[in-house]
């Protein structure tokens, strides 16, 4: 897409909503902006209805500003808290159903590759832990097995938050949640390890307490997916509403969990992915 595409036709400036005018005048398209520039431009994400202090909303906001080419990115989402925010995002985004996001993304990516063979059209899946690790496991894993050039980002709040805080495969052992009234009986799924074994050439674990690291993970994941193969980013996004801590404590919860060894930032690059990133960085100078 070029900026020309969404410019307001002469005479229509007055009738367009202010949010749209701001996007045209101060939006991030084709500007190569990042986390460092936050606060100085109009963000892709518009006012959303997610809870105060939502770790998922914060991560989504940081993820969107980390997209290397928002003007050529299509996002595929899934049912969950994030689906309340996606209608507010100024890039094309598909909400299909619960758990089929990587299958939808597969079809979309193949279609866009056929229609735009000479241009990078990034297809990025952003979904919760329930959608990615539980109900959508089959579609996620098989998109990796097939080597689809997609980026899969899990917003991991360790629960089904949108439906009222039920246990998910990503909840920690022993956590008392709805549908786990006696505490969760099995361990948090080692999904980054699963991703590596399933063929992801780049796997990162990050959280919004380190915005630069989150940005780097997302950016690398998308760039590597363009050329090399499937990539996976797992973002730890604590939920104050269902885990019943103060909204102001979201970031300190991440730090505490990190200290306790229950959350560990990580980055894995396959040799091919590492060589590609090195090549990109050298080209940049």
């Amino acid at each position, binding site marked *: *897409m070029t900026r020309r*595409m*969404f410019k307001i036709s002469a005479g229509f400036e007055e009738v367009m*909503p202010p*949010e*749209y005018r701001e*996007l045209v005048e101060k939006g991030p398209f084709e500007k190569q902006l990042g986390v460092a520039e936050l606060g100085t431009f109009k963000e892709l994400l*518009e*006012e959303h*209805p997610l809870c105060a202090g939502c770790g998922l909303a914060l991560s989504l906001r940081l993820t969107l500003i980390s997209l290397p080419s928002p*003007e*050529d*990115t*299509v996002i*595929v989402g899934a049912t969950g808290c994030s*689906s*309340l925010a*996606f*209608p*507010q*995002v*100024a*890039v*094309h*985004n*598909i*909400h*299909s*159903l619960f758990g*089929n996001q990587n*299958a*939808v*993304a*597969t*079809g*979309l*990516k*193949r*279609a*866009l590759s*056929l*229609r*735009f063979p000479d241009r990078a*059209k990034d297809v990025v899946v952003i979904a919760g832990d329930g959608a990615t690790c539980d109900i959508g496991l*089959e*579609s996620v894993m*098989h998109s990796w097995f*097939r080597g689809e050039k997609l980026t899969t980002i899990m917003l991991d709040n360790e629960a089904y938050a949108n439906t009222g805080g039920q246990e998910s495969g990503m909840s920690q052992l022993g956590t008392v949640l709805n549908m786990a009234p006696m505490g969760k009986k099995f361990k948090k799924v080692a999904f980054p390890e699963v991703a590596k074994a399933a063929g992801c050439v780049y796997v990162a674990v990050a959280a919004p307490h380190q915005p630069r690291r989150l940005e780097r993970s997302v950016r690398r994941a998308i760039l590597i997916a363009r050329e090399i193969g499937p990539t996976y980013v797992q973002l730890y996004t604590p939920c104050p509403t269902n885990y019943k801590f103060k909204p102001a404590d979201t970031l300190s919860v991440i730090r505490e969990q990190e200290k306790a060894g229950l959350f560990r930032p990580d980055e894995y690059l396959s040799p091919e992915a590492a060589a590609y990133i090195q090549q990109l960085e050298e080209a940049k100078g």
Partner: protein
Amino acid sequence: MMTQQVTVDPDRLFFQSERRKLFVTGSEAVGEAIKRANVDVGIAYPITPQSESMHIVGDLYAEGYLKDYFRGENEFSVMSAVAGASMGGVRVFTATGGPGTLRSFEMFPTWAGARLPIVCAFLTRGVNSPLTIQPDTIEMAYMLDTGMIMFHAEDAQDLYDMILKAFVVAEQCDVHIPVGVFADGFFVTHTRDEVMVAPPEMKLPAYQPYSSPVPVMDMENVPFRQMRDPFVMKSNFISYAAHASWQQEVTAAAERARPYIQHYLGGLVEAENPGADILVIASGTAVSQSRAAIQTAAGLGFEAGLVKVKCLRPFPTEEMRALTGQCKAIVVPEFNRVGWLAREIRATIEDNGKVVGGPRVFGGMTMPTDMIVDAIRRCSA
């Protein structure tokens, strides 16, 4: 390397080109249709012995008739992947049947709601437990209200014609919703029959993604902020109105398909001797059995007319009322237990006491034509 074919106007492909005769199964007829359909992406799931149709589509991909093709991990994912590809602006095709239809069911209203012009062949079979692989059309009862347009093929010839025509109907700008082409598994898919086909050097014009009435998800059109307050999970009048009007719009899109179906299929129904006192109304393989039965009945001195229902959604309401106004009895033979076609007809015509629900066979058996002859005989008494 794509196989070179000439793009021709649909009317020429369907009505003016010189057709040649093949002796093929219904599954092979699906392949003949796709060969001429200019499909970009085919996505398959193995549900053989339902049919070989998607193997054949795979072979067509290898021969350069399609641009992309792969096997998905389950039917739900396949229906999702074709949705993604369709949203990305390409022409797609897939096929399923029976348990596969039910497994992927959540996607069908989604296709319609997202205004995707997907064409899917449903090669029907039983869905009951204990396990069955036998022919049965019960899944069509569930499909009636997904928002999709539904054609029902009588034989391999219909299946070939209807698949090709489905693309043209589905992709009309004022329609732009999915079309399901249904054929009775085994009776059509596995039966070798004569099929007249257009020259293989011809194909339909390519899909025009920007004919879509909703934005193509390619970031080549304005990525506007869709809503200030998303109505997905809200309870307020704006939300109710948005959902209600959209459901109506999908239904209206199917209604707007009528003239195109009229033009390409030659009508939503086809009638033979419609002035008879007894009418047999059927769709799919039941039409073939009825044709044979009517002939036998005539030999025994019982006259009956035939109405073949080619399109179930939109339903041929006006046609049905006009055709059944004068008759005294209506026999509706069906290959399912519930008798969904009889139900539809009863709900459509005013004097519905004259509808005889049945005969019906299910569980896989062929309907002996004598059952229909008996029904005609009883109605004549």
